[in-house]
């Protein structure tokens, strides 16, 4: 019995010795030393900063720092709860020669909220332990900023107005392919699509465009851009309201005088520009029921600067009209035409008195008939008297 116990103990010792011999045979000190000189030389995210839900890539470059020893790598993977690797791990063996660098690229999805995360890259060596590297990445939900620097207080129908805007990038990385899309019902934007390009972190780019509105509406501004390959949009709505432009040219007709020559009326007067902008091609004409006649069917006063004035004269004929509309038109710097109409009273002595004096002259007629009646009556009485 005692002999059997010695035999068992001896067998255990032999097995333990055999195990030590196997381990000593695979883990040589040279391979471990060589693996120690393999390091991650760079870790690059594209995009550099992710929006939540963005996809991108992580490229890890591993460099063999040994000058005379190659090393075999056989498994590389990326692991994180937030930065999800959507590409498979590297499972093939490859030899990383002395001083060589090998890239490992992973497709990833940022599946976290704002914050800084550290996905772990691990690389297994055939002849040594694994290499672990934490690649820092930031998830930031900060969009580009579209700001309106200056815009008209009010818009006018058909008048082109310039809007001064700015695109700023408050993110920690640059974004690319920035395109501003301008649209709206009854809106003509120039240009309707504006390519801005790339914008670096912390930079700002001015963006100016003109808008011509045919009706009160809402201007839609869509700022599209790519963070890496992920499209993003910033939207802004601008109300387009019509009103009186405080700076607009304002030609005013004054000193109106009406004369009549042979059925042709002459209206003379002055046009003063009471606005703050130049009124171009100021023109005066008459509207129905007036019928413009030569020599001044229309009168072009020309350009009137603010506080400037010019005289005009128009000629027309009119039948049975007490007032006629006088139309004044001018253009702004963009060629938009503005019209205003002012009624001018034709004095009864000039106008067709026809209109004001068409009634029967009742009193004179009654007077004549009365006189006639007295005369005839008198003679009838006289004749009767002398007959008797």
């Amino acid at each position, binding site marked *: 019995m005692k002999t059997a116990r010695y035999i068992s103990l001896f067998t255990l010792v032999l097995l333990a010795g055999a195990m030590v011999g196997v381990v000593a045979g695979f883990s040589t000190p040279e391979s471990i030393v060589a693996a120690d000189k393999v390091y991650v030389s760079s870790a690059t995210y594209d995009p550099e900063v992710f929006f939540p839900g963005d996809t991108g890539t992580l490229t890890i470059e591993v460099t063999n720092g040994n000058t005379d020893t190659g090393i075999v790598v056989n498994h590389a993977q990326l692991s994180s709860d937030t930065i999800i690797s959507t590409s498979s791990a590297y499972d093939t063996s490859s030899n990383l020669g002395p001083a060589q660098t090998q890239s490992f690229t992973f497709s990833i999805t940022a599946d976290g909220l704002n914050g800084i995360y550290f996905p772990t890259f691990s690389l297994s060596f055939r002849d040594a332990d694994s290499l672990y590297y934490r690649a820092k990445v930031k998830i930031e939900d900060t969009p580009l900023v579209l700001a309106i620097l200056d815009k008209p207080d009010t818009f006018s129908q058909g008048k082109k107005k310039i809007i001064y805007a700015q695109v700023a990038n408050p993110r920690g990385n640059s974004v690319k392919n920035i395109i501003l899309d301008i649209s709206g019902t009854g809106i003509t934007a120039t240009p309707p699509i504006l390519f801005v390009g790339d914008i670096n972190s912390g930079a700002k780019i001015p963006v100016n465009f003109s808008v011509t509105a045919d009706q009160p509406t809402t201007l839609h501004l869509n700022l599209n851009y790519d963070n890496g390959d992920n499209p993003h949009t910033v939207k802004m709505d601008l109300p387009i309201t019509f009103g009186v432009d405080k700076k607009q040219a304002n030609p005013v007709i004054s000193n109106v005088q009406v004369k*009549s*020559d*042979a*059925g*042709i009326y002459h209206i003379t007067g002055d046009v003063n520009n009471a606005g703050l902008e130049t009124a171009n091609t100021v023109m005066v004409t008459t509207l129905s029921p007036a019928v413009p006649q*030569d*020599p001044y069917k229309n009168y072009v006063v020309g350009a009137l600067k603010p506080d400037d004035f010019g005289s005009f004269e128009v000629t027309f*004929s009119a*039948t049975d009209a007490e007032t006629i509309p006088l139309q004044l038109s001018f253009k702004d710097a963009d060629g938009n035409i503005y019209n205003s109409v002012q009624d001018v009273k034709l004095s*009864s*002595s*000039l*106008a*067709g*008195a*026809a209109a004001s*004096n068409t009634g*029967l*002259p009742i009193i*004179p*007629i009654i*007077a*004549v*008939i009365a*006189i*006639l009646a007295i*005369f*005839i009556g008198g*003679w009838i009485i*006289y*004749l009767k008297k*002398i007959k008797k």
Partner: protein
Amino acid sequence: MKHSLFEVLIKPGGFFQDAIVEKESLKIPGLIVLALGIVSAVYAYLIGGLTGKMMAGLIPGMESIIAISTILGALFGVFVFWVIWAGLFYLISSLFKGEGTFKRLLEFVGYGFLPQIFGAILTLIVALQYLPRVIVPQITSTAAQDPQLIQEAVKALMHDPAMMEMTQITSIISIVFLLWSANIWIFGMQHSRKLSPRDAALCVGIPVVAYILYMVYSMAVM
């Protein structure tokens, strides 16, 4: 002549009763009509001046042409009217079997124009008051090519408030003094054509009333 001319105004019966026995003579009636013609010519000159002013832009010297033509028209027009009135009375009185020469009738009708001289003077005074207030449209050479514009210009002149008021007043004056003349003509007809007072009144009254009604109509449609 036993009676003065003044008597023809207030007692035409007595005046013509005496005048019928005298020799026919158109001298005094002619002078009366001439006097009326002169006053009428002055009035016509004033009215013509407005027309001349309106047409001044058409042809140089147009004002003078119009002034001369209106003066001559008024001066001789009165004589034409004298003959027309006398002719009308003569024809109508013939229907009533009137007797007497046309010359005698013309003479007596001429006397009848005497009140109208006063009427013409009054008309002249009224015209002098109103005409400066009339605004006269000018017909330019351009407008002259369009008859419609000329018509409009004339219409504008005639419908000028001052012009219309003056026309109405002068018409009433003319009618009053025409009736005065008619009163004289009735007595003139009675004696010159040997008619009864009734027939004489009809001979004169019918054309005179018709003429007055025509004047009223013109005034109404003006």
